[in-house]
């Protein structure tokens, strides 16, 4: 039975979700144990995160393959964007691990890895935008106003939490720019992802997209946790922020996998 056929069976549909949930719980258990063995958890984090990022990229590539070419349609460019975004984030994780394990730089921040992460935002944003745009009429004017207001509050909160500690520290201009870029791009990504979530919360076709958005939201939560711990000099490899990134890649991989064969 092919991957595509397996993803279509209803029994398999639930099995895969429980499998990912079990994996997420296992990862949390390892991280909990690892807080008493920081050397172990650092290596665990360096090794597993690129694998999970690759899983997310591979699933996005499979999704693109199934929905492009002759069988393509409006979603082709959406899935191509997701695939490119995942490729950048996978390269970012590999670069981070390379710096840590080969170049022996424990916390390579900022580095080329950040360039890949930041580059990844552009296709992901475009993908989300393209996915939501044909359905924009579903939002009544009052909903649009509510969403815009909500986004202002959210963006303000994110920037309020991140910018003051940044400006207080004596960061070099590159660190400052990269550190500002993350919350800004996170806020922009959320401003598209949340309307998307509201639009697609119902409708069986969109279930895959809910996991993708969960993955993005977790990524943003990881960014905020990383920024806070890095700026307060409490970050270490294998810290809880890294676990949030692991969960994020799992959710993204699951979402892309579920989208391969639409379950209506």
């Amino acid at each position, binding site marked *: 039975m092919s991957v595509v056929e397996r993803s279509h069976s209803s029994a398999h549909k639930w099995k895969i979700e429980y499998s990912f949930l079990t994996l997420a719980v296992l990862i949390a258990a390892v991280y909990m144990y690892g807080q008493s063995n920081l050397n172990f958890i650092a290596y665990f984090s360096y090794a597993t995160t690129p694998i999970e990022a690759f899983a997310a990229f591979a699933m996005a590539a499979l999704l693109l393959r199934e929905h492009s070419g002759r069988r*393509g*349609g*409006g*979603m*082709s460019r959406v899935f191509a964007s997701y695939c490119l975004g995942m490729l950048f984030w996978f390269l970012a994780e590999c670069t981070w691990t390379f710096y840590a394990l080969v170049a022996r730089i424990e916390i390579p921040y900022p580095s080329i890895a950040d360039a890949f992460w930041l580059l990844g935002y552009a296709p992901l944003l475009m993908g989300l935008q393209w996915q939501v745009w044909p*359905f924009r009429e579903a939002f009544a004017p009052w909903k649009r106003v509510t969403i815009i207001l909500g986004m202002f509050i959210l963006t303000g909160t994110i920037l309020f939490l991140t910018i003051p500690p940044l400006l207080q520290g004596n960061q070099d201009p590159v660190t400052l720019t990269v550190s500002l870029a993350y919350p800004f791009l996170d806020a922009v990504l959320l401003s598209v992802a949340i309307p998307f979530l509201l639009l697609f919360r119902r*409708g*069986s*076709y*969109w279930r895959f997209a809910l996991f993708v958005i969960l993955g993005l939201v977790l990524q943003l939560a990881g960014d905020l946790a990383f920024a806070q711990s890095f700026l307060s000099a409490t970050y270490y490899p294998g810290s809880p922020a890294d676990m949030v990134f692991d969960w994020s890649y799992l959710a993204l991989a699951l979402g892309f996998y579920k989208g391969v064969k639409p379950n209506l």
Partner: protein
Amino acid sequence: MSIQAKSEAFDRALIESIDEAIRSLFSQQVVDAFHLNLKNKRSINQQDIPNSLQTLSVVFEKYFGLGSRTVERVIAQKLYLKLGIEFRRKEESRLVNYVESAKKILGSAQA
């Protein structure tokens, strides 16, 4: 052209419009899954679709949630284009309303 032939041509245009709209908004995979589900879960074959438009709206709502209005509007736009009728978007109209309007317009044009 006989009345039956005209009716068949209309139904064919409608079915094609449904497939094209879903393909343009999503992908061929979704078109296939849509027909498979209609057949297996609702016992609606492709040729029965023109007579099951009310059910179809319910199905679209279930599959695409808030996006179902867009799906129905795009289907209607494609249908009107095939029939050579000017499309006018109406906020509260569902697919069944657009199809009825198209039939009326065609009927009055031929009368």
